[in-house]
């Protein structure tokens, strides 16, 4: 159950507002002029993240002790939202990168934090995530890749697919089986992709979020030392799930950004496009779509900001994070379709950005826990495991 008293007090601070304004300005200047071409060419703008790191956005969640700013989940959500309003792809690059930093801060020992966090915040190193396998997605406890003991360390074997940021990552958080079947046999590792035996097998071509890098990573007898183990042996599934809870706020914020972009584009088009002697926004067939879009946007924002505020207050609510992601992603997908409908034939062309929003929105219902998984989490928090 969510905590009403804590939730009632949340507000957006001046600093959070300024971080949002910075992310908006950055996205407008650095991404907006290029996004149509980047999307068309499946281009990963590597140098964009060097710039983002220089102003501190990549370290938004990292504590000051490790070179970050410790601005918290509220600032993180606002930054991801503002990026997604221009490009959902770079928003997820940041979201996943920050999520892994948070996982290292939470699960890692002091040496691991000192090793990796300064690199992820000001060291121009991108973090990647490797969990999914060909036969294990939502069923993350069913992964087959193995880590077997050799001396003090481990030998990693297996194939990971849909690794976000994989090709460009300086460190990958990857899950391998160290024990028996099921979630309790899974451990998490921090692997430098330059370690012998790690290779990018192929990059995934996708319907949307094309500026985000997604790849298959092969681990062929990769030896890693004991310092690669993140958290205890058998704690990897729990670790991954913890990371994903924070990540869900990021993906929910990404969906909010896409939704906001849909509203911006739809309002502009409905005011300018004339039909039968009037702007099309004068017709209820169009204006009511915009009314619903704006209302769902506001509701989704409140859920996301509230989930973020609870995380910042030290009382994170997995249920609320799931509700935020479930609601925001459904709204983004639904209204991206409506935004395209408002644009009519123009919306179907690449001359207008709404076809990109339509393609980008769908993934938010799938990754970092599908909408079905979110509903299981939400339902269980009310019903328990029946």
């Amino acid at each position: 159950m969510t905590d009403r008293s804590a939730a009632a007090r949340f507000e957006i601070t001046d600093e959070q507002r300024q971080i949002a304004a910075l992310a908006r300005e950055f996205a407008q200047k650095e991404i907006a002029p290029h996004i149509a071409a980047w999307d068309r060419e499946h281009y990963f703008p590597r140098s964009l993240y060097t710039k983002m790191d220089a102003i501190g956005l990549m370290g938004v969640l990292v504590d000051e002790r490790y070179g970050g700013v410790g601005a918290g989940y509220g600032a993180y959500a606002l930054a991801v939202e503002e990026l997604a309003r221009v490009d959902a792809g770079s928003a997820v690059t940041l979201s996943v990168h920050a999520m892994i930093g948070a996982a290292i801060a939470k699960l890692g020992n002091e040496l691991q934090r000192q090793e990796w966090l300064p690199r992820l915040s000001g060291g121009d190193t991108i973090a990647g995530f490797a969990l999914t396998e060909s036969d294990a997605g939502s069923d993350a406890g069913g992964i087959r890749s193995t880590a077997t003991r050799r001396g003090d360390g481990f030998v990693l074997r297996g194939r990971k697919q849909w690794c976000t940021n994989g090709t460009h990552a300086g460190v990958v958080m990857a899950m391998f089986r160290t024990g028996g079947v099921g979630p309790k046999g899974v451990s998490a590792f921090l692997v430098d992709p330059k370690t012998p035996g790690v290779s990018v097998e192929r990059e995934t071509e996708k319907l949307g979020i094309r500026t985000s890098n997604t790849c298959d990573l092969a681990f062929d007898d990769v030896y890693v030392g004991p310092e690669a183990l993140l958290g205890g042996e058998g704690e990897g599934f729990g670790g991954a799930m913890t990371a994903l809870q924070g990540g869900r706020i990021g993906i929910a914020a990404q969906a909010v950004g896409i939704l906001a972009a849909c509203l911006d584009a739809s309002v502009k088009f409905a005011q300018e496009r004339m039909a039968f002697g009037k702007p099309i926004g004068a017709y209820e067939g169009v204006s009511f779509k915009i009314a619903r879009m704006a209302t769902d946007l506001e509701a989704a924002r409140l859920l996301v900001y509230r989930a973020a505020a609870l995380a910042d207050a030290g009382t994170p609510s997995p249920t609320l994070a799931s509700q935020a992601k479930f609601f925001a992603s459904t709204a983004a997908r639904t209204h991206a379709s409506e935004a395209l409908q408002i644009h009519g034939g123009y919306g179907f062309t690449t001359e207008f950005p709404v076809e990109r929003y339509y393609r980008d929105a769908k993934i938010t219902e799938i990754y970092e826990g599908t909408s079905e998984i979110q509903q299981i989490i939400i339902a269980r928090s009310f019903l328990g495991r029946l």
Partner: protein
Amino acid sequence: MKIVVTVKLVPDPNGEKKLDPATKRLVRTGVETVINPYDEYALEAALQLKERIGGDSTVTVFCMSPESLKESLRKALAMGADGAVMLSDSSLEGSDVWASAHAMSLALKRIGFDILIVGGLTDDGSTGAVPGALAEFLGVPCLTNVRKIEIADGKVRVERETDGGYQEVTGSLPMLVTTALTIGEPRYPSLKGIMGAKKKPIDMLSVADIGAADTVGSAGSKTELLSFAPPPARGAGQIVTPEDPAAGAAAILAFLKDKKLV
């Protein structure tokens, strides 16, 4: 070296601008307020100058604006300014160029400066007349449209943009410099800067503090805006439907020749 930058807070240039027919003033409510983009270049010049000079140089931002817009000024502090001074007073409302520059000069005399860096133009009023008036009231030399500033041995050496190239000019401190956009792209504030900006001071001054009571606002102004009108609507244009592309090109060429554009 005390570097002072003047900053104006203006309605977001990306938003739609509206004039209130009753007051004949720009509508400043219901729109985001941002730092005048030209002033961000002036601030960038100041921050670069401070970085080059080093030592105990400081950058202070000066802003004449309603106190309610104080938070919009934090961006300047997040970008790296050391502190800010705001001249805020409801009696300042409606000040024309003369009254604004006069009030600003009194405040700037109080603040003191070695070099005053001013953006060349504001995005809202766009008179471009304040820097010159300010230099006059302050009794300091004014070098305009500057793309590069160097200071050594108490002498200022600048490059001024001209239509055909640039001039090198030297002068002595204290001095007022206005910046050209070629001075360098304004930096982004950093997250560290944003988190630290709250701890930096924004000192407040009132009209009483600077002793300008009779010379401010509409009453203290020397000019009065009588009326305004939107630019005339564009004509319908001329549509040519040629037989083939060559005929179309010929028609366009004839049109341009007729207008003496080619």
